[in-house]
């Protein structure tokens, strides 16, 4: 069985750093940041940890229904989704994730666009 990016880049030790970096980026970003205005920190961190971990093929996979429910109250447009995708890309680059792995992770993310974005 081939290694998932999660295993390849050092498991939780690396993922935790990626999570914190992405968390900082998200909160500082004026486009997607406002989505987190009213979210408690522990809840948000929990969300991000599971999010990054499962995107990279680590433990905790969200079901699509779960994702849909969690974002039910938010009005997300393509622009937000694209911005988040950019932020993920930037973050993975900072951690020297190889381009093909980054593409795979972004592909996983892109696959959920329809679930999240308002039409």
């Amino acid at each position, binding site marked *: 069985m081939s290694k998932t990016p999660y295993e390849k880049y050092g498991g939780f030790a690396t993922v935790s750093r990626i999570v914190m970096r992405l968390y900082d980026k998200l909160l500082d970003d004026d486009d997607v940041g406002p989505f987190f205005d009213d979210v408690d920190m522990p809840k948000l961190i929990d969300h991000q940890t599971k999010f990054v971990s499962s995107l990279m093929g680590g433990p*905790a996979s969200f079901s699509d229904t779960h994702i849909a429910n969690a974002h039910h109250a938010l009005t997300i447009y393509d622009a937000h989704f694209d911005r988040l995708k950019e932020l993920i890309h930037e973050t993975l680059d900072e951690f020297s994730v190889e381009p093909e792995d980054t593409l795979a992770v972004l592909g996983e993310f892109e696959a959920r666009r329809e679930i999240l974005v308002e039409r």
Partner: protein
Amino acid sequence: MSIAAINEQLLRAIGVGVALVKVKSGAIRYANDTFGDWFGPIDGEVKLSELLAGAELMDALKRLETEDSFTSEVSFKRRRRSMTVAIEANRALDEGEDIAVLVCQNISRIKELESMIDSYAMMVERNTHEIRREKEHVEKLLLNMMPRTAYEEYKSFGVVAPRLFQDVTVLTLSFANFEQLIEDHDPAVIVSELNDVYTAFDRIGEQFGCERVRTAGDSYFTVSGVPDPVHDHAGTVANAALRFLRYLEQRNTSHPIKWNARIGIASGTVIGSVVGVQKYVYDVFGPAVTQASEVQSMAPQMRVGLHPTTAAKLDTPYHLEPVAGQELTLLSEAPVAKETQT
């Protein structure tokens, strides 16, 4: 630059928030830049209560009216980011007035990391739980394919060494007219019936101390003395065989499909081992197995055929009926031999 000036510069630049506050009024006498960065700009006459998390800060201040020093934490949101600041407060006297010396450290990152570890720990626990369940499932499957001792050996060493078992008794059973039954009935029905029958055999065998080796279509194969030695292995298997037939007789009276079995029993030596590299199967083979299937094919329907190797070991309370000209003895319960269809 004077020492005092250096001190002040230092105080400004360090990553610790420092403030001097009048305990009674809450008026801020001094705050360094870091303190201001966290709690809000300190311009002119600002009171502690006017800052971010002012209420909590004032509560902390109140404690200094009765205590000399304490530590606490305040949490607040600053630009959608949750901040947690640990405060060490000391009361000092300055020109007859109580002054609170507040030394603050930003512990938001620690809190965030704690949350992340909590979250991760939960994921890991759930995963561990799933893995354990999966493991139990696999174990259950493997225990269906091999005896527990063989499984333990397999688990520890990755292989099961072939073993010679000297004193064992083997039972093989097959059903008469099985091909016809398959033709006449829905496969699902046949499978469910066989499932029923084999489950009953397993249960009976277990009661008497037999270990089922395998089933293959209409043949059922069980053994006593593998892997653990059984003192009266021949009697054990003979009893089980008679109970198998009794079970089938009873079942046949109330079910549309009549299962007529032939049973063969032989005693002697077998080899027990896991066979196969990819598809593990615990198998038992050897002279006793061959002899058992020989007498099984000679036995009339719903009768138990004994090879001489087993017949020699059985005495009362069985009824033994040697068949002239053949290496076959028919077994039934003593004292009254049951005559069933032949």
